């Protein structure tokens, strides 16, 4: 059974996902185990600067984790979704579905 979302949680989710770019990032991370920065930018057609800002926000919210490494002397940044990010994203989708369900 889905846990009911409180008003406070709902407001926090709305704020976190208020930007379409963040929604796209979370949707991508939800279905992929991990993705590197360049792939993400290409896939979502976001500029590197824009993506970087949103990733930082999501990281601060505790929704994504970052892994930095050097491969063939080139830096590679990989992102994965955290458990909290997954739960909150799912809650957000449930909330959206609840909103539209009475008027479907």
């Amino acid at each position, binding site marked *: 059974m889905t846990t009911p979302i409180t008003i406070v949680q709902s*407001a926090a989710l*709305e*704020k976190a*996902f*208020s930007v*379409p770019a963040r*929604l*796209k990032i979370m*949707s*991508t991370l*939800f*279905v*992929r185990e991990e993705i590197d920065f360049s792939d993400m930018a290409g*896939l*979502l057609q976001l500029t590197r600067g824009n993506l970087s800002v949103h990733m930082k926000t999501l990281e601060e919210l505790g929704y994504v984790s970052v892994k930095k490494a050097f491969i063939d002397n080139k830096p590679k940044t990989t992102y994965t979704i955290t458990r909290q990010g997954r739960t909150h994203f*799912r809650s957000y*989708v449930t*909330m*959206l*579905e609840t*909103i*539209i369900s009475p*008027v479907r």
Partner: protein
Amino acid sequence: MTQPIGPERAREDLSIIRETIDRSTGSRFLADFIRTQASLFILFGILGCVGCLVHWYALLRYPTSPATLPIIAGMWSAIMAFTGVIKVRGFFRRSKAFNMDFLTYYRNLTHFSFFQVYLPVGLAGIILFILFIKIGLWQHIVPTIVVIMGIIINSLSVFFIDKRLNLTGYFYILLGGAGLLFFDGALLLFCGMVFLSFTVLGSLLHLYGGFQE
């Protein structure tokens, strides 16, 4: 202060999520597919082409020799069986990995590929394999039966499972099924189509020859 989300915004957000997931899983599927299975499928494609060339050569050189079609059929069914296992395993892994109740769209997408594509082709492959072993005399008719079976199974899945008509399924089944194995990538599709062209042409020629005899 953030405005509460209305139905319109909710619909828009869900639409963004669905589109993004669709795009992300599509590209991931393709990437995984190419990375893990490409060499295998290309090898099958080459083997198929060689097999079909041999079939053609034998057909033209020795028209009355024991048919080589069953060899091709056997090869085909082996490929079907192998890829069927891979695909079914992939289907269950993906179902487990994702929350299937989360997005109806995604569920439908998976449902579609399984019931419309892999299940009919896999069943056709198994039937072909059994026929190949048991009924050697039916060799000329086997490809026809496979195609008809594919159409029937596909129709059943369309009308009773997905409840929607999708001509793409028929198109691929009518092509003979082999192209389906290479559904996920252009290069693989190319290999599949080459293999398929030879199979279809060889089979038709053989069928024609069989009727002439």
